[in-house]
């Protein structure tokens, strides 16, 4: 696994996203940030912290597990059954601007599944997407509204991974072969 950027790149990407959201001029009481499990939850937490500093308030925050909504859920696989994470949304999503947060946007399938999961909790005014890194390679017609940074020159067999201090002890952006 080859490290291509350190923690400062991750931090600046979070700041970028927060700034873009702030510039949209949303009413902060209407914003709800939902991290897509697993690493999207870390992104969402940091994004919420940054946004709170910029907007001077507490934006709603939660997490959403998409395992049950994946389009490969009914395919019997040789892979281990995924550990299903818990969805925690402790606020009413109706009429809210829901910002889904994730670490890497690639095919768009995770985001599609997350939207399916979200609408089971109510009817948000808007669902938007914030991603730390956009690496291109979409298989669904999905685009992020807020992007920390772009990595769209990767080969298909390269894997873009973000490590976070909360899990791996240190922030960093890595490339590995699949």
């Amino acid at each position, binding site marked *: 696994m080859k490290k291509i950027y350190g923690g400062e790149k991750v931090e600046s990407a979070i700041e970028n996203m927060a700034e873009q959201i702030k510039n949209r001029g949303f009413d902060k009481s209407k914003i709800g940030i939902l991290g897509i499990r697993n690493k999207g939850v870390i992104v969402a937490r940091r994004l919420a912290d940054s946004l709170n500093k910029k907007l001077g308030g507490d934006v709603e925050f939660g997490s959403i597990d998409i395992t*049950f909504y994946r389009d490969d859920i009914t395919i*019997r*696989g040789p892979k281990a*059954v995924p*550990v299903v994470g*818990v969805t925690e949304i402790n606020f009413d999503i109706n009429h809210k601007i829901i910002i889904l947060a994730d670490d890497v946007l690639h095919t768009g399938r995770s985001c599609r599944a997350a939207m399916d999961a979200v609408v089971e909790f*109510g009817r948000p005014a808007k669902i938007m997407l914030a991603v730390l890194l956009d690496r291109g390679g979409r298989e669904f017609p999905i685009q992020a509204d807020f992007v920390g940074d772009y990595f769209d020159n990767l080969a298909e067999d390269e894997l873009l991974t973000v490590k976070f201090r909360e899990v791996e002890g240190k922030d960093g952006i890595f490339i590995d072969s699949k």
Partner: protein
Amino acid sequence: MAEGKIEWTRKHLLGLRELSREEIELILDTAKSFAEVNKRSIKKTPVLRGKVVVNMFFEDSTRTRNSFTLASRRLSADVIEFTKKSSALSKGETLLDTARNLEAMGVDLVVIRHNAGGTPKLLSRSIDACVVNAGDGFHEHPTQALLDVYTIREKFGSLDGLKIGIVGDIANSRVARSNVYAMTKLGAEVTLIGPPTLMPPIGDLPVKVSNSFDDVIESLDVVNMLRVQFERLSSNPFPSKREYTRLFGLTEQRMKRAKDNIAVMHPGPMNRGMEIESSVADGANSLILKQVTNGIAVRMAVLFLVSRAPE
């Protein structure tokens, strides 16, 4: 997507004897996520969309059947309810022929309860669909035990080191057998309590046995009260119901000697006033209705996992 610590490879759930601690914990962890789904306003997930589940119940059942039906529907499966009386079995068709015919209609999962032990295993060897045991004879009732340990884990956080008493008609109880496998694998110390006439040979089961409820009640963290299954008895195993209640019933009087936070459980149906007094069954220590609620999430987890297993 996070990958599981262990690989789930079982296409069928026939019993808990052959499951490892890690496999049991995976079911319980998965059930926790489904419990969250069951608290939503829309209690549905698309996990089994397009799949067909058939409930084949050859014995009477209220809780288990309804629980499986609800679990299947909440996973978005189509459900066929099958009863012996309303089927071609009453015309002489064999169980296997019936199952194969159902499979020919595109059934993906078969949930079966039968009065003959081993029937789910026979079925699993004869058809391609996933088979889930909903209770077979005196053998096992795995999903009941799974919901029991889920409920205990929910209250205490872990079963490690807990002292659990299973009280009553052990000899005729498939629940007791599955309970022992699940509870001991998760680290609990299990004591089987009942009259000698309702105590089967224990063999190599890692349990203690007591013929006196009063001798052990003070030490128990959990007590699981079993119904005396008169329908399976050929002779009277005790002088009278009153005598049974005096010695093995969970009464208010006996509860005074138990730990303050003892968990009271019962797989149902209850004989109120016999193995358990109503005031105890409905009291502050009772987890009986919690067991029923948790049963749906646990069965959702089981159906999900077996349906995902490799072919």
